[in-house]
């Protein structure tokens, strides 16, 4: 029973929030945010409390091992901070913020199911829960034209990616006559001849997952949807759905398709190179900050995929560490973005001029997270990029590392230009921005996390590598 402790707690919070939304009067809606955050916190504590419980349920379809526990801890942290972010953004949510929390909890439940399932069907259902809730979240601002347009675009491409995922699963099912990961793995090893079905199936699944990661085949939607949807949802896309897709793909790739890795890593390398070049060059002329973050998350997804070139637990550990650092950095950045979104309507980069005078704290937090996004030494981003480049070069892809380094330099241009605007320009109106207590705490936590990961990365890397061993 204690294996599904996180899912149980989350479903409980789901219902509590649902009923309290009905009971509470109009003005006390912000309580819901705190309730959801508490729910996530409780689930997190429970998960850590039952850390050494591992085993499988539903005849092996649902498994709880080191990897899934770490992933769930990640999801819960994301959920906790996102709920606080929605609270700060609440003033813009005209249509009532209750449903927003429900969607968030549902998505996190979907993720935790997806990550600890070893049956393709359950993975597919988990993914679908995430996509459904994100469809609704994008077009949540019913009155805003941009949000709806983002919704329709997200829906069309989401549907195509789900269709591809299903097609891939049917081919894998065709090739191995079962949906369970272990049997597929044995089928792949034993069947010499009709590996083609399995390989093509895997490819379709990979293409469908690239949609969530916003990597080359499915990367076109990202800038528009990031710009259109409300800021917490953009944060959700750039952090939550990307982490879910990567953790699920980690399980699929390393538990089934490790034997054919050396051919696949060449495809990965080409895709990474294309993503990095596309994302970083397109980001240079961006004027809207959310659109810029769209391209930046695309480029980070490219760097994470570099981690997939590794063939052992150490390499996978680096991918998890990169996720840790990416989550902390993006959370810090998006907290600042969502807070400022309340003050200005169209998120243009020019709004950030002279932020130092308006509120030094927001400016320094955004400064540290931008440093980490570029990969500048004292922050976690630098260590993460270094480790990922290390695994790429370790596998012999020196040319990919060179492209990665130069694209990182290019990214320095557009990140540091924001820093330049914040610190060196004069603000238009110097009205100081008041920061609610919850955002202050979360900002301190996330920025602190970024710096700690940067200065003393040793133990965290060790933790991730421990978790990664259970994949092999």
């Amino acid at each position, binding site marked *: 029973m204690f294996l599904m402790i996180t899912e149980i707690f989350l479903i409980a919070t789901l219902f509590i929030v649902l009923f309290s939304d009905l009971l509470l009067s109009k003005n006390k809606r912000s309580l819901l945010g705190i309730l959801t955050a508490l729910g996530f916190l409780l689930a997190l504590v429970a998960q850590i409390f039952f850390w050494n419980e591992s085993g499988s349920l539903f005849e092996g379809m649902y498994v709880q091992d080191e990897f899934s526990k770490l992933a769930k801890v990640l999801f819960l942290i994301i959920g906790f901070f996102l709920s606080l972010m929605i609270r700060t953004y609440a003033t813009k949510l005209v249509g009532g913020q209750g449903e927003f929390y429900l969607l968030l909890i549902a998505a996190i439940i979907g993720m935790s199911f997806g990550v600890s399932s070893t049956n393709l069907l359950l993975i597919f259902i988990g993914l679908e829960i995430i996509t459904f809730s994100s469809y609704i979240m994008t077009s949540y601002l019913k009155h805003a034209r941009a949000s709806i347009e983002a919704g329709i675009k997200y829906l069309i491409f989401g549907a195509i990616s789900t269709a591809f995922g299903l097609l891939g699963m049917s081919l894998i099912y065709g090739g191995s006559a079962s949906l369970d990961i272990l049997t597929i793995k044995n089928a792949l090893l034993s069947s010499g001849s009709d590996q083609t079905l399995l390989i093509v199936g895997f490819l379709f699944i990979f293409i469908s997952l690239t949609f969530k990661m916003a990597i080359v085949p499915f990367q076109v939607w990202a800038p528009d949807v990031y710009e259109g949807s409300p800021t917490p949802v953009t944060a959700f896309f750039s952090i939550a759905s990307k982490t879910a897709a990567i953790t699920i793909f980690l399980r699929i790739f390393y538990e089934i398709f490790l034997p054919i890795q050396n051919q696949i890593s060449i495809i990965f390398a080409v895709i990474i190179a294309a993503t990095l070049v596309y994302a970083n060059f397109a980001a240079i002329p961006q004027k809207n900050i959310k659109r810029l973050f769209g391209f930046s998350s695309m480029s980070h997804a490219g760097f994470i995929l570099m981690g997939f070139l590794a063939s052992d637990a150490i390499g996978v550990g680096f991918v998890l560490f990169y996720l840790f650092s990416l989550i902390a950095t993006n959370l810090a950045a998006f907290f600042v973005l969502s807070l400022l979104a309340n003050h200005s309507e169209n998120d243009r980069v020019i709004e950030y001029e002279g932020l130092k005078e308006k509120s030094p704290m927001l400016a320094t937090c955004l400064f540290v997270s931008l440093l980490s996004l570029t990969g500048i030494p004292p922050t976690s981003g630098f260590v993460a990029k270094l480790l990922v480049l290390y695994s790429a070069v370790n596998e012999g892809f020196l040319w990919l590392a060179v492209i990665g380094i130069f694209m990182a*330099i290019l990214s320095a241009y557009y990140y540091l230009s924001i820093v330049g605007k914040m610190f060196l320009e004069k603000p238009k109106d110097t009205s100081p921005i008041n920061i609610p207590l919850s955002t202050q705490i979360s900002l301190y936590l996330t920025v602190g996390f970024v710096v700690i990961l940067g200065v003393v990365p040793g133990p965290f*890397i060790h933790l991730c590598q421990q978790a990664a061993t259970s994949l092999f």
Partner: protein
Amino acid sequence: MIDLSFYFIAIPMASLALMALVPSSQLKLIKTIAWISSSACLALALFVLLKLDRTNTSFQFISQLSWIQTPEINLHLGVDGINVWLIVLTSLVSFAGLYACSSIQKDAKGFYLLYLLLTLGAYGTFLSVNLFFFFLFLEIEALVSYPLISNWGRGEKKFAAMQFTLYAILASAFVLVGLLGLYFLPAIQTMDMVQLGAHLQANPLSLALQHKLFAFFLIGFGILSAVWPFHAWGPIGYSSAPTAGSMLLAGVLKKVGAYGLIRFGLLMLPDAAALWMPWLALWIMMNLVYVGFIALAQKELRNLIGYSSSSHMGFVIIGLACFTSLGTAGAMLVMFSHGLLVALLFLIAELVERKMGTTQIDALGGLAINWPFTATCFSLAALAASSVPGFANFAGELVILFAVWNQYQWLTIGVLICVLLTAIYMFRAIRNIFFGPIKESHQNTEEPVKSLFCKVPFLLLIGFLLLIGFCPTLALKDFENGLTQLKIIEKGEELKTNSELI
């Protein structure tokens, strides 16, 4: 374990932390912290210089702290013959640079923080024996230059800051690729230069691999040390940077390029170096002659100093290009003396600008009448630059001349043309700025450097220039110790045969 070399990093780090806590209103306290930190480093550097055991040629005062276990990266610092004088140079320049900081009023705390960070980067780059930390400190230096120039600079500082930092980052990117190659390609995967050096001595990489890596290092360190096509980004940065910043950047960041070429190019990839060096020697002629003529056409004092330092880096590179321990020792001596010289010249440019408001040469004139001390310092610096005997530059250039003649007979003409050009524009600068009748608008400007306290940096820098000028064996002995494991001694000789083609 911790030894003296660690304190070069610990002192700036501690004073950085301390200074961050102090509120920006108490300028006095901030300044004292900066003073204490840089004078402590200076004392430490001189102490290390004296205590360095001249007989043992390997690293001394080693301190080691582990940072990451899996790809085994640890902070490993050490002092040896090659970098001891560069550390002394950094401490001298950073100590002298503090004098130029006093003119900074606009949020001085930020400036002092960045200044200490720059010194930390410089110490770290020279001291670190670990590949990763060498790159890390190099990156810090490159990145700190952006806010330093764009916030406290002058002229079109935005453009200058942007292009300065981008070039520095581009250079460190090339260096990073080279370092990655050095880490992964040889059989033992270690970040420790000593083990790597020993391993590469025993079983060097294949020639093709060495060529690729050496190409990356050459471009990376070439950009840093202002080799010909990349000679302009430095002077633009220095002329619009605050003087303390340009002193450190011109004095130290340029030397990192040449230092890196010695450490990674000559010591670790000798075979590739042997084949690249003759072409580098030819290539650097442009630096010596072309950039010399550019300096000749400069109308503004800071540009003049910047371009003259770019063309003087030609001496260092051609010293390295002779690929003998003689040439390299000469190059290192010129690096040391040129660092002091550039710091001195920028300090005087700061005084001139602070008093006269402009450094345009034709707007100045006849300052020596009211400014005897500054005029003497500037003329001494100009003499040192145009390699008049008695100064360290002359000793270095003499050794280089003999080394270059030994390898590439008639390329020395390029070196001598550069010496001649330097003499022309330096003496023209003395004549136009300090000699001649005083302009009526500057009649009443009194001496900017009055008290002994203000005279200390000048005396310190000129003192060291004269000390090494009179007895250069002090420094040359250390360089020779540092280069003993340099396999190139006999390679240098054998190189001579194929250099006949020039």
